[in-house]
């Protein structure tokens, strides 16, 4: 591993002052440390932010919004009663991710900042426009395909986060501080599509630090009908092949408002606004959900031999809407976000 400076600032101000080009923020380290070991990331300076004060709280603001500090551990957030009550699909998504040990270490800010698991991005000897601009895209050359929405010739990678999918659906906001002061970025606009500059992964400016994530008060209005669904080729500890976060606000037997986002299909959590518009005002039924899923994937195109993934994403979307319409379960399923969530013999939170 390349040698690097390691500092542990005690205040946010010190942390921001310590930043310089070539520096990275270190939270739980569950992704960055792996990438430093393979050589895919070679920072000159690692700034450990886990000692910064005031970033580990979950609080309800006067307007009903929920503010989550960027250093809150994924497992603490998933188990928090406010989240279970007001944003259950956020908890469900968190519990569908990684493993218990990793969730104990991983932070909220780190989850937002995690890098694609594209094998070629992680392999420093591969051509990758995201990691090394201008080198090409070995992933596209390989032909299997990855993203089905929003990809470009330069990059076909997907964002691996489960957590960010319901956040995008619920209009969550990222709070950041930087050399130019504080600002807010909607989660749906936080990650960038690759275009010609896949190395620009987020809207963060150099030196900006995530302070927290805020779930707006209106997010809590979806709590009764909100589900996250994740399809994968083993039951736990695997990234999604496709996923979807679906939330419905039902009034008088009709969908007053729908929220829908797809995971593992693009370089960002994919907010399906056309499908949301199609659902609004309608009576929920299977045919409607199928049409909404069609609409959500209308712009999809395979980035290789993965046309099957469009089909699977459509099915995942329709199912997530059905699950949301059926109502948020009173208790977290034993296998969160899983088609096998009902299996009684399973251990909780596999």
């Amino acid at each position, binding site marked *: 591993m390349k040698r690097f400076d390691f500092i542990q600032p005690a205040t946010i101000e010190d942390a921001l002052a310590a930043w310089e080009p070539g520096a990275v923020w270190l939270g739980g380290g569950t992704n960055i440390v792996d990438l430093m070991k393979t050589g895919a990331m070679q920072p000159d300076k690692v700034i450990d932010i886990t000692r910064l004060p005031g970033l580990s709280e979950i609080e309800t603001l006067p307007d009903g919004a929920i503010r989550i500090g960027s250093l809150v551990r994924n497992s603490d957030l998933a188990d928090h009663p406010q989240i279970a009550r007001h944003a259950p699909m956020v908890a469900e998504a968190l519990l569908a991710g990684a493993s218990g040990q990793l969730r104990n270490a991983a932070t909220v800010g780190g989850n937002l900042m995690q890098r694609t698991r594209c094998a070629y991005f992680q392999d420093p000897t591969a051509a990758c426009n995201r990691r090394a601009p201008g080198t090409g895209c070995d992933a596209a050359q390989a032909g299997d395909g990855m993203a089905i929405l929003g990809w470009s010739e330069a990059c076909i990678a997907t964002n691996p986060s489960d957590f960010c999918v319901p956040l995008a659906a619920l209009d969550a906001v990222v709070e950041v501080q930087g050399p130019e002061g504080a600002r807010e970025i909607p989660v749906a606009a936080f990650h960038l599509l690759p275009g010609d500059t896949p190395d620009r992964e987020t809207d963060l400016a150099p030196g900006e630090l995530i302070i927290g994530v805020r779930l707006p008060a209106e997010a809590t209005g979806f709590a009764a009908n909100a589900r996250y669904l994740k399809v994968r*080729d083993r039951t736990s500890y695997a990234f999604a092949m496709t996923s979807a976060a679906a939330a419905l606000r039902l009034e008088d037997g009709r969908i007053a408002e729908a929220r829908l986002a797809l995971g593992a299909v693009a370089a960002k959590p994919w907010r399906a606004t056309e499908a949301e518009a199609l659902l609004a005002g309608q009576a929920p039924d299977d045919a409607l959900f199928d049409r909404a899923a069609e609409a959500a994937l209308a712009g999809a195109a395979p980035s290789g031999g993965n046309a099957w993934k469009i089909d699977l994403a459509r099915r995942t979307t329709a199912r997530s809407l059905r699950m949301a319409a059926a109502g948020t379960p009173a208790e977290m399923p034993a296998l969160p976000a899983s088609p096998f969530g009902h299996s009684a013999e399973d251990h909780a939170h596999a």
Partner: protein
Amino acid sequence: MPDTLDTHVRFGSNSGQPITRRDGRAKVTGGATFAADNSPDSVLHAVYVPATIARGRVTALDTAAAEAHPGVTHVVTPQNRPPLQGDPSDKPTMFSFRFEALQDDTVRYAGQPIALILGETLEAATEGARLLNPRYEIATPRTGLDEAAHYTFDPDAFGKPADTVHGDPEAGHAAAAHSVDVTYETAPQYHNAMETHAVVASWDGDRLSLDMPSQALSMTCAGIAYYFGIPAENVTLRSPYLGGGFGSKAIPTGPYVLAVLAARMTGRPVKMMLTRQQMFGPVGHRGQTRQRLRLGTDAEGRLTVLDHAGLSATSTFDDFIEPAANASQGLYAAGALRSTHSAVRLDVGTPGPMRAPGEASGSAALECAMDEMAETLGMDPLEFRLRNYAETEPGTGKPFSSKALRECYAQGAERFGWADRPLQPGQMRDADGLRVGWGMGTAFFPCPMFMAEANATLRADGTAMVETSAADMGQGAWTALAQIAADSLGLPLDQVEFRAGHSGLPDAGVAGGSGHTATAGSALHAAGGDVIRQLGEIAAADPDSPLHGAGNAGFTARDGRLYVAGDDSRSDAFADILARAGGAEVSGAGSASRAPEAAEAHAMNAHGAVFAEVKVDPDLCQMRVTRLVGAFAAGRIINPRLAESQLYGGMIWGLSFALHEEARHDPARGHIVNADLAGYHVPVNADVHGLDVISVHEDDPYVNALGVKGVGEIGITGTVGAIGNAIWHATGKRVRRFPIRIDDLLGD
């Protein structure tokens, strides 16, 4: 499994007791010393640079940059690599492979060592390896079964399986009233023992000391010694614990030889431990296969022919051809049997033995083809297998030494509830609307014996020490072999000191082929018997012994005493016999192998039946194995707890084979793109539940004096096919390629 109150209390005999692993506490508390836990003074750390292309040539290395890195002491490349005394292309032992040890700049597979960095710290050596920044001339890699010419070969004892024909297959095809002709493929799989390969090597003159996990200590010493031009007895190998072996730790490979070479070159101890990524290349794997099965039956469903043709991938420079088609020999009573093998040379590391080599891949295809044949006949798959039950070995007509397969079928089917299975697929749904399917497969594995030796010493205080260079890969050799040894001496387990895992001990042979308990156990049994025989002679000749003059009646040993056979009123304690004889020790020796005439007289195999339930989401096609019931008959079970664990492990691997494991190659460079445990999937805990193992009683008077067959590998066989067949039964879709993936089931 009922727990005993105190697992070291002896009830009757030691064998047959579900004693917990004697090394378990040391392992879970960190007290067990694995190879890489050793750090001798002044040790150097070795890191090899793996090729990142599969075919071509190394054109440049930044050796100066690597050498300049602080802490890097040596950069070894084909330019400056000191000579070996034995050619890496030679095969000094029966189970040797050709390997890469920096002979030249050719790249034959991704992951091949192309340089070696030595450093004062692991971090320095690792960074030196990165700085070497190899450049290549890349040739188009061949990693798929159709990307190079297929060939046939002359068989030899290891790695080149012979074709076998019994009866007239063409006549069998011609006579068939019903037939299937199906082709199955299996993916390349890589052993991923929890403990990656590791070695700590140090030289003292021409004597070599090794700490290194080994499934075959004596053979490993002989192999390493050959490459360095020293006698095998100059090599001392310590391998007390292996964190899994699975076949990949039986044979010295290139990385080991490079580490030993580095130690000789520098005059310092050298430690090397492979990274997880480095496990995908130079240390063996299960080669991919394509298998065509043509089955024919008469109108009543009796097989007229079972015709199995296997194509297996090997490397460009050596032959390990997965003997998959042999799985169709010895199991079903077909009128004619044919197993043929062909191969294709790909730009991959040489495959090698990986838990049930041949049997696992072959059984997967065979058991699915049998299911397809039953479907064609409109017959229940279990009934079809019973209709073709072999009472004697198919083809040869030899009697089986024992075969309780019928009981396995019956007990497994009963436990599973097989009788309620609808014949047609797609008939069952659970309360949540998930598709449910049931499938089954026959498990089958031969029970070979190798050669082993053991010593036993009865000490003056009546306790004993037994020794053999056995290997405990986690299967429980430290425990099961000690149980056998204690019984052979008539002593409680806690009065027997068992020494193993060291090359200075009598040769225990190979922990492989599911034959280690049978082989090393038989040697220990013989050694203990030799001691008791001598002790009896001493007692019978001693006028002060209650046993005086009873030699003709014979003695039995029990609880530290010798008894006159058939007369419990006359006995003498071991310690008393020895005390009167002047406090001497009594030492005995034993050896074991199977006599050729015994091997010729009977067909010897373990059998089993595996039943699987899967659930498949009807829209999302995500699959889950919800129940697995395996009933196995494998002769005498020395330790039911350990044997069950072995069978569980085998069945879980079967699940892994059926639904998860697959190394995927990049088409341009040929490297494996998922070479870590995040990308190379094996089942996690949440994938494994509803596991049920039934041990079916079996007495076998022919396999060996102990009646032990072995349980290490059989659990994989049968299971893969059972799961594939269950997925068909749930969905109506036959997927003829393992692992079965979600996208295989989409689009209906």
